[in-house]
């Protein structure tokens, strides 16, 4: 899984234009990031990569980069 795949997945979940996220953003600053979209991202990750991300860890992520890192780790762990 490439970092770009994770960013596109988050953009789709938040209904943001493609390639609008760089990874440097704070999640708190993204207006669409709330409890519903958190659930949406967990569902999207499960659908696309077959990994149920731990909800509490998703909740603790402060930045887009942390969130994508969490996804990358989960996908890598599943592949191992």
């Amino acid at each position, binding site marked *: 899984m490439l970092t770009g795949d994770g960013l596109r997945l988050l953009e789709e979940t938040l209904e943001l234009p493609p390639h609008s996220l760089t990874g440097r953003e704070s999640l708190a600053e993204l207006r669409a990031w709330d409890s519903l979209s958190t659930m*949406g991202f*967990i569902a999207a990750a*499960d659908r696309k990569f077959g990994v149920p991300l731990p909800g509490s860890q998703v909740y603790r992520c402060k930045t887009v980069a942390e969130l994508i890192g969490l996804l990358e780790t989960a996908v890598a762990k599943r592949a191992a």
Partner: protein
Amino acid sequence: MEVRRFPLYASVRAIEYHLPEQTLTNAELAAAFPDWSVDKIATKTGIVQRHIASEEECASDLAVTAARKLFASGVCRPDDLDFLLFCTQSPDYFLPTTACLLQERLGIPTHAGALDFNLGCSGFVYGLSLAKGLVETGQAQNVLLLTADTYSKFLHTEDRGVRTLFGDAAAATLIQGRPDAACVDSSWIGPFVFGTDGRGAENLIVRHGGMRERESLGHLHMNGPEIFTFTLRAVPKAVNDLLARAEKMLDDVDLFVFHQANRYMLEHLRDKLSIPHEKFVLHLSHCGNTVSSTIPIALKEAQTQGQLHRDRLVMVVGFGVGYSWGATLLRWAC
């Protein structure tokens, strides 16, 4: 009590439900929380309105109305009942047992057994299991399973996440013993699979007001993302374990009625399990997540709307607070 000479098979004979009069609409929520639009709430949750008990109205009051609807339908009288099971997490008192109060209010004979059990969204499935055990071991013939909760009394007015989802309700289900099996070697109810994982306790909890933390009644805390991850892990496994135990394939099941948590979660579980849309019941738009009453309400509505007919095979799956989960198959006998 009459001595029965033949084995009886437990079956769901009838369901009725009751919603309190007062409602909370998406427009009211959107006015209170301007970040969320009416459309967004409806699209994501599948809920248009929830019914909210009045200040003086308790779960037992809702249960009484649901039970009286059942009696009024003519399917049974209070005199016919020999056991009352009451599932709630919002009882009238610490003690006495609310089921004892319900026995008196409903005019159920004093020779009937009655007990409360404290479960949330898995409660209906566990209630079916308890009722089946009572009937098929000859301890009871007509079991009234009441599920009722007033979660609204636990919700903080500023917590939009939970106020959006939960509504109050009660359901009354009659489980009756009958001499005939559904078909050769087949039960009307069962088999069952259960699951429990107390590590999830902190993710859906009303911490204060019990004996451990005795301050005044606390508010419901829900870690939504963690609950969602739990369902992704637990529900598909429960469905597959139940199919294996029943020696059935997914295609053998005519209708799937899962706990109606929210539309987003349900649609994801449906797609993950490859359940056809037409076999999957979504029924929460008018009442929200009513905890242990979502499954009987959805069953009743599926029957009313012609989705559910006699002899159809239905899978019901409850999951949530605890964590606790359970699943069973019903050969529909109504």
